[in-house]
């Protein structure tokens, strides 16, 4: 429904935010990605496995955790191909986001790359690995054929 006629507006003063996100408490996780490892956190007291990793255990309130390698294979639970991208992803071509249940027991959300769209299906096998991206260390899936 068109508005009539074009209305008066005032431009606000511009503002730009860049947040500096602390990653010290999960240093081992982020450094692991840089060394090609993908870790989940495991509570040293109750054994709860978490991905994404957490520096503290909400189940038993313990603060002692260790890192467990979760690279390897998993199975696609669901996925989508994102066509309309956010402002800060405009330079990126369309991407596929996949949620996969890993053999290690954790569920991981990440991009699936290098696959033909028609091959991406619920139940398909994927492999998780560390990925170096211009925005920092990350991780992603490829299809297992």
């Amino acid at each position, binding site marked *: 429904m068109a508005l009539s006629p074009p209305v008066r507006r005032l431009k606000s003063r511009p503002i730009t935010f860049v947040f500096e996100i602390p990653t010290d408490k999960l240093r081992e996780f982020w450094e692991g990605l840089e060394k090609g490892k993908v870790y989940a956190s495991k509570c040293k007291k109750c054994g709860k496995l978490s991905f*994404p990793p957490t520096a503290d255990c909400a189940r038993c309130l313990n603060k002692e955790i260790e890192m467990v390698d979760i690279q390897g294979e998993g199975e696609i639970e*669901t*996925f*989508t191909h994102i066509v309309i991208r956010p402002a800060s992803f*405009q330079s990126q071509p369309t991407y596929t986001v996949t949620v996969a249940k890993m053999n290690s027991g954790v569920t991981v959300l*990440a991009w699936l790359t290098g696959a033909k769209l028609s091959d991406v299906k619920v139940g398909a096998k994927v492999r998780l690995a560390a990925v170096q*991206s211009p925005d920092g260390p990350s991780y992603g899936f490829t299809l297992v054929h």
Partner: protein
Amino acid sequence: MRKVAIVGVGHSRFGDRRDVNLPELAFEAAKPAFEDANLTSKDVDFLSVGTAGGWYEEFLPAVVVSEYLGLSGKGLVRCEAACASGSAAVATAYNTIASGQNDVAMAVGIEKMTEVDTLTAVELIGRAGYYLWEFHNFGMTFPGYYALHATAHMKKFGTTEEQLAEVAVKNHKYGSMNPYAHLQRAIKIDDVLSSRMVAWPLKLYDCSPISDGAAAIILASEEKAKSLTDSPVWIEAIGTSSDTANISKRSGYTGLEATVIASEKAFKRANVGPDQFDVADVHDCFTIAELLAYEDLGFCERGEGGKMIDEGQTEIGGKIPVNVDGGLKAKGHPIGATGVSMMVGLTRQLRKQAGKTQVPIKNGLALAHNVGGTGHYCYVTVLRS
């Protein structure tokens, strides 16, 4: 706990509302609510403002709205529960009366989403999950999150893109009869199927629009309500729940657990079942979300949402009319306004003032289901006439 009734409702026109600023838009909803209740700002003890914010210039929107409505000096809070911020504001106002702190309270839901460009809005809503783990590296979008559920539902239950489209067609049909709706036009299945892909399998017409809008209600204690009106609408129960910020930590993708838990709480407290409602507003931010709601709320069996829309059971005259105000899909979804807008529409239904989209009122029961984020928050509210 004291009984609490809705005694006044007001609604702005939803849509591209760059003709007004934030408090002016709030006024469009508050003025008719005051007039409906036959009250003025002097009579109100407390204001809660539901808004997600971030896409308009005001950092303390509640104080700006409160001053503009003449409510400075009264109790005031801003409520944020993402797309359920409006319901959070209603629940907060309700609680201050039920607990005996106040006798009359107003809840305003408001959002102005068109003061930033569309891709910035996509960015901000995309961050409404877990920025660190799902946005920073993976650029999740709000349609993307619901697309994950659509993919899983289609795979598990054989739900089709045509069935998703039927939800949009139904809600646009009713939206075309709602003078406050953003998209007041009927559409056909092919319009949905041929619309631009947003996040496979969801297309543009599977998505609610980016809208501006405001809605307001006035709540009163039982004694006060009975002195004000012959047709109070009672808030029988509010059930709330939440779920993980990380979508990857959910138990599954074919439903929203928060809806199941919140509705069980609300139904138990109100001593009602899902088959007793005369009308329901459910959170159809995307077409798949409406089908998930049918199943999560118990309107049909798990996996039968597609069948329910096929059979027209959620049209007026069906088993339970759903979103006959056009839903978020056609009425529009100004994030913080939505939960309050549901109360306005359902109050008009229970008062039999809903005009062309009036449903038959048999049990005098209505249900509002408002989800925040992708099942991150859920508020289920039971209303009774």
